């Protein structure tokens, strides 16, 4: 039996600058400490973002990935999209049109689907993966 971990969707504030990024970080920090955190940042309200805001998103992504989780973005406002592209981080995040789409993409492969012992490619390659393991 697979237990699907919850996906947390967080709404980012209208302005993601140093000040508001700190408050976002305070809210998200407990989630990042969990095993395989799965977080979606809803950027639909974001109207301005500076370097500190982008850095906060990258920090969250890094922390999530350290724990085998992921951070995704959804509903990017044009302003947020401009900033992410300008700072070359748009390709770092998986971006979806809606939060539902982001949540679905997390649930497509259950977080606990692969057992700890199996190689990462086992789920994808199936029997071929087993063969590779045998050889």
């Amino acid at each position, binding site marked *: 039996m697979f237990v699907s971990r919850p996906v947390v969707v967080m709404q980012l504030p209208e302005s993601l600058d140093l000040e508001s990024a700190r408050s976002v970080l305070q809210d998200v920090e407990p989630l990042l400490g969990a095993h395989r955190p799965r977080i979606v940042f809803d950027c639909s309200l974001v109207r301005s973002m500076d*370097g500190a805001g982008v850095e906060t998103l*990258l920090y969250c*992504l*890094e922390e999530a*990935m*350290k724990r085998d989780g992921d951070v995704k973005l959804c509903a990017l406002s044009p302003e947020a999209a401009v900033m992410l592209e*300008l700072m070359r981080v748009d390709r770092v995040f998986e971006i979806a049109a809606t939060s539902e789409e982001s949540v679905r993409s997390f649930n497509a492969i259950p977080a606990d689907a692969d057992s700890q012992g199996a190689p990462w490619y086992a789920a994808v390659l199936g029997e071929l993966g087993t063969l590779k393991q045998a050889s």
Partner: protein
Amino acid sequence: MEEQVSGAIIIVDFEAADTLALTAAPPPACIEVLGESLLARLVGAMQVQRIDVVTILVDDRLAPLSPAFDSITNIPAQWVKNPWHGATETLRNYKDRGMEMAVVMRAAAYAEVDVEEFVRFHRAQAQFATRAFDAHGPLDFWVVTTDHIREMEDVGREMETSPARYVVRGYVNRLTGPRDLRRLVTDGLGSRCQLRPLGAQIRPGVWVGEGAHIHRKARIVAPAFIGHGSRVNSNCLITRGSSVESNSEIDFDTVVEDSSILENSYVGIGLDMTHSVVDGCTLHSLKHNVTVNIADPALIGRVAARRKSSPSSELPLLGLAQHIICARYQRRSIDARLANKYSLCL
């Protein structure tokens, strides 16, 4: 007989000031395009057409921009409350000076008009005024006869209602927004109009203005324009019809692609500036059709504001966040999956 007008009135009104949707931007006429403002180009074009007297009438609500006007042309601007009333007065003055005809234009669009042919056409119409049109409608460009100017109360209205129409066959760009500005730049660089970059062509399709500094490790891929006094730092790439107007700076490792960096603008380290028009801290993205004001001077801003800061405050201006991101890209001990993701954007 050679057709000749002796006077030209160039009107810079307040309504034109906001057309490019860039905050605090001067009217399109004052914005530098490939090294020279359209107003300066207009004045130059009038002088080439042997028009002796050129009058520039500027709405006095644009007074905060007066230093910009002073440096544009050698003709001093006349600040008036209502430029159209000012035009009436100027036309009466032209009449008193014995000038038979005058060109009146609003400096809001870029139009390549053969004035000599326009005047010949106007003379044949035997009307007070003839207005220029293109395929998309009327242009704010008239040839006016000064004969009965004294009897007219509202010359502006007479010009608006004039039935005579001259169809412009040359290139026209209405400059109604940043997209038009970009089109004008690419058309200029691609020789699709008569607008030529002000600078030396150092390679086919690459023009560089006087005193521009391009680092030997920077790449300029044609077509591109670097304006006078500009600085392009190491590892930068300027390409796809981009223009870096005068006294601007593109900092280390930044890519400028299909973009216009207006004069005195700074673009920070390690950025991807694509499909955009930048004026100081204002960025208009053509891709997303949105104007963003960026308050972080490490990203974009005015060159003058940066130069005012002392050398000791230079480091914070480079942007701590940017340094952290750069350092993060270079980390070798990072989780393999994360490294793979980051490598996509290197």
